[in-house]
């Protein structure tokens, strides 16, 4: 069985060097965004989704597990953070902690169930679990069902940074994104990441080498879910609402799409993919449901002819790892 991703290359000093340069370019670009006059709300949203896609990519790209339910972490963390900020009146940093903790807890519980099966079954189970959560959130009072949680106060981060100022908010979100991104980068290049990759390539061999592969997969799942939750908590400050859209399966599909477009198993692919998809939704918004059709078409094209994704193809062309 051919694996989902065959574009990653062995981690070598040169690869890491390439990646650091790319990281520097990306950071520099993102730092100057507010000066360019681009609608900051759009970039902040894209950053949240980029982090989300990176977290998702950790699981599929390096663990070989396709989750079709990652929206549940995004939505759960969003709801909990929103509730903490609005109802409990917590400060922004504590609101984020609450959301992330909730996502982590959810990841532990669902992870234990989901990693019992692999491949397509894993995808279907995560999808079903997230749908279960969707219905729970539809009915529990604290989420306000269809209405969602609205008008969430942005507050002052650490008591100093006024998050209702778009420029300050932008840099806070950017800092959050970079933090999450580097954490994932570090994980991939750690011994833990190496074991994950070996499980993806050949689980039987990893088992015979004495690795308890289920534990590794569970841990990868928990890290991925927790970081996805972090993205959800950040998004609350941007959108100032938390709603069912973020837990719906269409959102899970969009996460898969972003990563697929950018390149499964590439470090920067999910970031590029997230920006591409969010920009597309933004600029094609006038075409109604044709956006959905185009997204579907991108799925089909990617799967049939373009399985490495944008970054994957570039990396493949230059024989580099990105």
């Amino acid at each position, binding site marked *: *069985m*051919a*694996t*989902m991703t065959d574009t990653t290359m062995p981690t070598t000093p040169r690869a890491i060097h390439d990646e650091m340069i790319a990281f520097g370019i990306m950071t520099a670009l993102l730092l100057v965004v507010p000066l360019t006059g681009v609608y900051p709300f759009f970039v902040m949203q894209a950053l949240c989704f980029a982090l989300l896609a990176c977290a998702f990519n950790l699981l599929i790209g390096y663990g070989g597990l*396709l989750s*079709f339910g990652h929206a549940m972490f995004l939505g759960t963390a969003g709801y909990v953070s929103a509730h903490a900020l609005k109802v409990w009146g917590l400060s922004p940093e504590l609101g984020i902690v609450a959301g992330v903790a909730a996502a982590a807890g959810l990841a532990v519980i669902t992870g234990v*169930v989901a990693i*019992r*099966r*692999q*491949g*397509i*079954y894993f*995808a*279907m*189970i995560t*999808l*079903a*679990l997230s*749908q*279960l959560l969707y*219905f*729970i959130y*539809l*009915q529990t009072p604290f989420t306000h069902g269809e209405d969602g949680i609205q008008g969430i106060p942005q507050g002052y981060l650490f008591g100093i940074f006024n998050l209702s100022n778009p420029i300050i908010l932008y840099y806070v979100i950017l800092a959050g994104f970079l933090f999450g991104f580097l954490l994932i980068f570090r994980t991939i290049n750690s011994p833990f990441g190496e074991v994950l990759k070996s499980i993806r390539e050949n689980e039987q061999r990893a088992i015979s080498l004495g690795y308890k592969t289920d534990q590794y997969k569970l841990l990868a799942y928990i890290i991925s879910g927790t970081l996805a939750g972090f993205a959800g908590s950040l998004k609350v400050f941007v959108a100032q609402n938390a709603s069912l859209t973020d837990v719906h*399966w269409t959102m899970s*599909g969009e996460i*898969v799409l972003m990563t*697929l477009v950018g390149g499964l198993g590439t470090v920067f692919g999910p970031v590029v993919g997230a920006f591409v998809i969010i920009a597309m939704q933004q600029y094609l918004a006038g075409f*109604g*449901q*044709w*956006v*959905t*059709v185009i*997204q*579907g*078409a*991108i*799925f*089909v094209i*990617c*799967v*049939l002819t373009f*399985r490495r994704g944008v970054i994957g193809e570039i990396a493949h062309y230059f024989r580099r790892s990105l």
Partner: protein
Amino acid sequence: MQALYAQLLVGLINGSFYALLSLGLAVIFGMLNIINFAHGAVYMMGAFVAYFLLNVAGIGYWPALIIAPIVVGIFGMILERTMLQWLSGLDHLYGLLLTFGLALIIQGVFQNYFGSSGLPYSIPDELKGGMNLGFMFLPIYRGWVVVFSLIVCLLTWYLIERTRLGAYLRAATENPTLVRAFGVNVPRMITLTYGLGVGLAALAGVLSAPINQVRPLMGADLIIVVFAVVVIGGMGSIMGSIITGFTLGVVEGLTKYFYPEASNTVVFVLMVLVLLVKPSGLTGRAA
């Protein structure tokens, strides 16, 4: 008590749709090793074909029961020929992603033209009205749906498990190379199988049109429940998916009576329980 029986009937009707859809998924999975994410979309197409037949060509419910599955089945076979067959040899997840993309395209196109609210499709005159059975009020159409789906499910089971064609099918699943050596055209068989699975979904769509109305997103949420049904039942056996489908419908109906708040989630909760106890599903073999 009357309400209990009535809710059980509603459950059985949903169970019929679960059974028809999970049966189709199982048939396709057996042959193509693909989880057909577009199953909900073709179910919706079945309903739309019936709607078009009635409103454009004036062709009613009964012919639609035959025409719609054939039309949609052919559409499915074209998809298989032009796209799905290129995925053999790749990770099965690519099949899931491709069919997910197809589902988005199909649903999006219909949403563009028909919005997201329902179009009415009325019950055929022969099946209008209801009977008072004493212990409950039975709308005739709904009774018909249950009986008819059961018959179709059993016929499909017979076709695959008890006929020569079915024997080829099963053999080709186990060992395609060997079956090809016997002179059977395996790729054509795969195409036909996909058409059959998709046709079953379209049939379910026609049956559902008078109950659920014709809506572009009618299959989108349903398919996820059906996935859970498939995980619970395991995909190993045809009869397994039929029985699981109907049973879960009934369980849902019971939940609607005893604890309505949980009726949306009960199937998913059961899925979790089954996974904890028997990860391969009730009738499935280890994947």
